[in-house]
């Protein structure tokens, strides 16, 4: 008679080789692993250097960066604290330093004009890879009103600073050119002291969707195919996850759209070039856009998106983000279910 033993009752074979084979592996991106390269950092550097050589035009095209730097620095009003050492990452032409030295004028005339925010900041370290742009305004008045240190980075994606050496990190209008955004955010987190904020703003989402669609349609019709002319950008939904992955807590992410009107597509592209924000996508077609495509793109832009008065709108979507470095003594949310007051009662009393 044959003895039938069910498989499950058999003693488990022991030994390291089988145990290893049974271990489960998860797909994840190890730190230091390959990063998907989207932008060409050298092209970006060249474009910024080139933009800075024409000082007058470069200053004229700074309207967007100045406005966003102002909105970033106004967020300091919400934090009642002094910041002895602050890093401005990707400083462009030190727009944040300029914004910090300006008086804050409220649109409501009854609100008194507030003194500049530079009193809250001790030393501001402005870093960027483009030397020309960084030192463009080094001899202007605002340099004397704030303790400003400029430092040229060899590359934008490596921060050569000691861990826990800054009381705040600011960044305005430069993180949308970074290839390894998770890596840079993790580095920002590590150079911050515990319980210190990172306040950043970058272009994202639907920025320049009008230009993107018009050029796509024009290339499709004229040449039968398309090449990228506007960068792929991070979406609002991604940014929260990125900040969390980098170890930040108490996140705030919000967006705002700034719509600028231009006379035609050429004026928009000229301004983008003067800002140093022209196309630096790696997979792009080299050389200028053909004249036929430009002519067709301008016509489509006007027809598809144009305003009634003949101008064209360009949307810049700015993603603002705030994250805090974790600390033991930080305010934390209470435990779930520990609330004593019913919110419904309060809201219904009104």
């Amino acid at each position, binding site marked *: 008679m044959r003895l039938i033993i069910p498989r499950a009752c058999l003693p488990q074979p022991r030994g390291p080789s089988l145990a290893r084979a049974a271990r489960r592996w998860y797909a994840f991106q190890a730190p230091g692993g390959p990063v998907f390269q989207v932008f060409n950092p050298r092209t970006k550097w060249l474009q910024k250097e080139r933009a800075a050589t024409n000082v007058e035009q470069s200053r004229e095209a700074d309207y967007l960066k100045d406005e966003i730097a102002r909105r970033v620095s106004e967020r300091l009003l919400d934090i009642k604290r002094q910041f002895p050492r602050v890093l401005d990452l990707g400083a462009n032409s030190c727009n944040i330093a300029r914004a910090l030295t300006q008086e804050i004028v409220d649109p409501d005339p009854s609100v008194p004009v507030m003194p500049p925010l530079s009193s809250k900041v001790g030393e501001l370290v402005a870093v960027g890879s483009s030397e020309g742009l960084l030192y463009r305004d080094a001899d202007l008045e605002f340099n004397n009103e704030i303790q400003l240190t400029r430092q040229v980075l060899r590359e934008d994606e490596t921060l050569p600073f000691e861990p826990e050496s800054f009381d705040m990190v600011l960044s305005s209008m430069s993180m949308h050119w970074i290839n390894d955004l998770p890596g840079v955010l993790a580095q920002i987190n590590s150079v911050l002291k515990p319980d210190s904020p990172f306040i950043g703003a970058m272009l994202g989402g639907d920025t320049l969707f009008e230009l993107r669609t018009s050029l796509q349609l024009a290339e499709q*019709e004229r040449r039968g195919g398309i090449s990228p002319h506007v960068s792929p950008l991070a979406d609002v939904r991604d940014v929260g996850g990125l900040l969390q992955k980098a170890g930040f807590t108490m996140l705030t992410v919000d967006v705002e759209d700034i719509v600028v009107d231009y006379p035609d597509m*050429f004026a928009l592209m000229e301004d983008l070039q003067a800002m140093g924000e022209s196309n630096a996508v790696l997979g792009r077609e080299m050389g200028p856009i053909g004249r036929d495509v430009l002519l067709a793109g301008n016509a489509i832009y006007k027809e598809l998106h144009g305003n009634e008065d003949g101008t064209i709108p360009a949307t810049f979507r700015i993603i603002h983000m705030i994250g805090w470095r974790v600390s033991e003594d930080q305010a934390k949310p209470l435990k779930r279910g520990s609330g004593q007051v019913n919110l419904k009662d309060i809201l219904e009393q009104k």
Partner: protein
Amino acid sequence: MQPKTRPIKRFAAAASKCSAEATVYGKCIVVDYNSVHKDKCVKEFMKLKDCFLVAAKGAK
């Protein structure tokens, strides 16, 4: 010496003189922009380009 006008400025000036043709071309594309293929509006574009070339020549 007069400062040299950038080519893009001359291009924009010439293109702005052909707004009527540009509107016709734009309408041809926009009327059904989900099915754009090569040379879909080649007739309208050639009219726009002819006008542009004349305007660009006149500006020099």
